[in-house]
């Protein structure tokens, strides 16, 4: 382990330079800031006012970072075409496609496969989870009950195969409220009025829930032809569905939802944001990634149905 990194007590996750190994879970600079005597917050003024109205008081702006190396070709990656043409990928999504033409030439793609890239998903979870945990550590250090207005960004640093996870939020305490069970603050993407409406509707935020799914498409001949308009003198004359690509997209959505559902424990996911990124690798090959985030909420009382809202027209 490099000199600039130390290990958190009992854990195996590296901390940035300057972090205290046993004085706590947060870097020294953050520790000083959190105990400076004034609060900081990422809330807008209306959100700040709405939180005070609910008896929720900001304590500190808290954040967590994690920079991960993205080992696309690392150990365990069946990247190289032809290594595992018909693997079963125990417990993960795999779908195989066979050429309908028989032998055409040595360049002809006689098989194709959609393959869930679990090592990519695990790396993303580790990066997101580490940044999230560091944010929680800062909030715990500040004595917070919860974190509101969570915002997360994920960006690639240059073209280095390196990804930075950054999660930030406003740590808060509930005036005259109980500390959170187990000491871990509750978290939510919501703040201000939207959070107030959530409480009024009978829900309490539990935590942020997030997952990424990654599916690699190794195109077989038909997918290559359909996505590239033709190959080797063959040209599609009619429109046709690229079933392998559709399967990959539907699977990536499905896997992301399953990952998040496994974090819900019977609670609900509110305000979900689901987005797909597609990276073309040429000749019909591609990687499909689906990112799903939202707030896990729990019903704490039966929600009475609201009266139908009164429609209004503004004159201004």
């Amino acid at each position: 382990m490099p000199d600039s990194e130390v290990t958190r007590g009992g854990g195996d996750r590296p901390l940035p330079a300057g972090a205290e190994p046993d004085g706590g879970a947060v870097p020294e600079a953050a520790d000083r800031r959190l105990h400076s005597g004034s609060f900081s917050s990422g809330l807008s003024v209306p959100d700040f006012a709405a939180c005070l109205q609910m008896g929720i008081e900001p304590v500190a702006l808290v954040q967590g970072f994690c920079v991960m190396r993205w080992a696309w070709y690392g150990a365990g990656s069946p990247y190289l075409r032809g290594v595992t043409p018909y693997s079963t990928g125990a417990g993960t999504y795999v779908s195989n496609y066979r050429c309908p033409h028989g032998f055409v030439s040595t360049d002809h793609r006689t098989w194709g496969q959609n393959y869930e890239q679990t090592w990519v998903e695990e790396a993303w979870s580790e990066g997101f989870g580490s940044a999230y945990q560091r944010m929680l550590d800062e909030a715990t250090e500040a004595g917070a009950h919860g974190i509101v207005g969570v915002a997360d960004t994920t960006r690639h640093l240059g073209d280095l195969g390196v990804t930075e996870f950054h999660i930030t939020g406003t740590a808060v305490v509930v005036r005259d409220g109980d500390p959170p069970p187990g000491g871990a603050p509750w978290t939510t993407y919501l703040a201000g009025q939207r959070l107030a409406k959530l409480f009024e509707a009978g829900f309490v935020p539990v935590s942020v829930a997030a997952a990424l799914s990654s599916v690699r498409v190794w195109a077989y001949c038909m997918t290559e032809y359909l996505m590239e308009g033709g190959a080797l003198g063959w040209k599609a004359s009619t429109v046709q569905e690229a079933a392998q690509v559709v399967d990959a997209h539907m699977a990536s959505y499905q896997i992301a939802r399953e990952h998040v559902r496994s974090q819900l424990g019977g609670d609900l996911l509110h305000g979900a944001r689901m987005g797909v990124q597609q990276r073309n690798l040429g000749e019909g090959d591609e990687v499909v990634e689906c990112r799903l985030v939202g707030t896990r909420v729990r019903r704490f009382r039966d929600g009475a149905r609201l009266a139908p809202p009164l429609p209004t027209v503004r004159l201004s």
Partner: protein
Amino acid sequence: MTPGPSGEPAPVDLRAEVRRATAALARPGTPGRVAGATSDLSVDEALLLHAVGWEVLDLVCGVSVYSVPLGVWSWGQGEITAASAAHRAAFQGAAARLAAEAARAGGQGVVGVRVGVEVRPHSIHVELVGTAARPAGSSRAGRPFVSDLSGRDFALLVQAGWMPLGLAFGAGFVYAPRRSAATALTQKARNVELTNLTDAMYSARESAMARMQEAALDMGGHGVVAVTVTEGPMGFARHAVGFSAWGTVVRLEAPSHRSLAPQVVVPLDDPVVTFEAQALRGS
């Protein structure tokens, strides 16, 4: 919110509610009818759906990718039928998958559908993502409707006695005909209408709108609301013009339209005065 003695809704003690809510984190949640539901609706939208008697079930999606044969974007005349057909098939495929996912989740409709369409040189991609919903507690089976209306718009429609039936769509791709060399030379130094492009835009638009309305009639709808249109030359083939339109097909379910009689309100908020940096420069 419970009514007070005068019939007005009693104000909620938010602070007590927040304390009660956070204290409840120590114990399991109150089991609802729908455990593990997922939704991309906002709090407002979910509450509005609840107010009109609907409950959210699950986040659902539908995808379809259709190939566009090689060479169809080359110069030609009239409609690019293969591209229009691929667009129609991709939209139908994605909508069918979305509805099937919603039906599996027990939904009777999908609201707030986000429509993603991408036209590439060799393929057309359509992705639909929305939230499956049903009347609270209902277990009626049937083909769910698909709608890109927000929770707010859906609630307003239902209150007014209308129901969405599905998503109608249409697309038209046409070639902008070449001008002859003589015409091009004549027009070079004059301000004139490029009738070939005008005609191409008209043709593409009319084809797309007609197809959308035909789809609405096929569903038995009375009309299409909240139509979204995209138009213009294709980025990878400037001589080809594409026009697509989609919207939610609606039908009047009540005996007659129920007027919502909106109340006119005059906001008395002061406008927010912001610092104008340009003022420092005296301009």
